[in-house]
């Protein structure tokens, strides 16, 4: 008689909802107007990590909807034009979803390069939109000040991919 095998089911709650809530929590905490030893807290776009990792973990219907919600949350919190961050995030998701077959199973360094390219593309899109809406181009130095912390949180995306990629035996 075969022994029953424990099947680990990883639902959207584990890899979409909980990370989204954590991203919202971290964004709210980093938006606190305090200075630590004379320096302001960084303001990375944390949901970019999710927009990059989710299509690599598994194609999903819930993930784009979650990105829409996260983008609207960022727009309301940061007072950017409504739709700006949801569009940027979904563009990252779409680009990675299309190139998913090339990226599956790649090592971390390759993924970081792709994450950098995708993030820069999203920031460029946001830069163009804000330039058109505000009638003035934002400072490139200030833009760099947001790009760098966003790239530095790539280990979170890598951790998320390694944690949930192939984690559900039903998708093997």
């Amino acid at each position, binding site marked *: 008689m075969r022994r029953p095998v424990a099947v680990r089911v990883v639902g959207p709650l584990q890899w979409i909802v909980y990370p989204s809530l954590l991203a919202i929590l971290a964004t709210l905490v980093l938006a606190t107007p*305090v200075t630590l*030893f004379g320096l302001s807290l960084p303001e990375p776009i944390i949901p970019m990590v999710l927009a990059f990792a989710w299509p690599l973990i598994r*194609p999903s219907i819930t993930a784009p909807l979650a990105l829409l919600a996260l983008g609207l949350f960022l727009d309301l919190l940061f007072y950017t034009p409504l739709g700006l961050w*949801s569009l940027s995030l979904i563009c990252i998701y*779409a680009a990675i979803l299309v190139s*998913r077959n090339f990226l599956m199973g790649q090592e971390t360094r390759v993924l970081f390069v792709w994450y950098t390219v995708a993030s820069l593309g999203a920031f460029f899109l946001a830069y163009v939109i*804000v330039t058109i809406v505000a009638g003035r*181009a934002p400072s490139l130095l200030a833009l760099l000040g947001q790009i760098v912390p966003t790239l530095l949180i790539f280990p979170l995306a890598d951790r998320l991919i390694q944690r949930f990629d192939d984690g559900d035996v039903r998708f093997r």
Partner: protein
Amino acid sequence: MAFRDGPLENLKVPLIWTAGLTVLAVLAVSVFLLLGQRRDDPDSQNAIRGAGDQVSGGVGGVLAAPVRWVGAASDYIGDYFFAVSENRRLKEQVAELQAVADANIALQNINSRYESMLGIRVEPPVPTQTARSISESRGPFARSRLIDVGTGQGVRIGNPVINEHGLVGRVVGTSPRVSRVLLVTDVSSRIPVLIDRTDARAMLTGDGSGNPRLEYVRGTDSVEVGDRVLTSGDGGGIPRGVPIGVVARGIDGSWRVKLFSDRGAIDFVKVLRFEDFGQLVDPETLNAPPLAALGTAPVPPAPEAPAPATPSPATQAQPGGEGE
């Protein structure tokens, strides 16, 4: 008949297709939201943003409490280690400011005498409302803050916001208990300013960096490095004379302003519940005598003709009086 038993029973759509369709739908919604914004009507989304500010202000205020404690601890450590040098610097500053304070008293006295002699209508005192900054956005695309006062405390859209050093920004969104302040460094901020030394007018335009640009400077050689920049009051949105900062050269060669408000943490601010003269004047008073009597005043008689005892109805008609 259940859906599973129908002709679509064996239809299986690849997951990547459904995900792709969802992506297209989200793309369409995002573009629609972006295009649906009316740039000429900032109040069009005030209800949505006001509700969002209300929620994020409340939640953020609670979540940020531990971060504030850490910030207070770092300030305490900094004060402990730099107390001696800070004390020396403050003593020098007090000695310098004592002379300025004496001169200020004398100038105020002379100024008030001039005003009374000339009969100048001075600006009325501006009521203020103290507030605490709850949340901050400091990215390149938006620079704003949430403060914990709203329409319930009399705050209105357009009110200027200052801290103890200078101008911080102005209110662009309100809800009952929380307001949104657009900082002068935001990419869409435009503030009419003047150079204190030369009285030259210019426009302070934010670009998302810490030091906004000084553009449209009138006159030649009217700006130098180190000049003080104040609000000009042009347009009536912000009272004249609110300090903003000092002029500096940017690395790109453009004129920029080092903000006074950056000298300390912007944790507590004051909202100036300012209304310009145009808003303060009751429209009814503009139609009251003597201006309203212009349409009914008799025309002065011609020098040659004999003056009639009572003006005829024909002489009472005035140009433009028919429309009233």
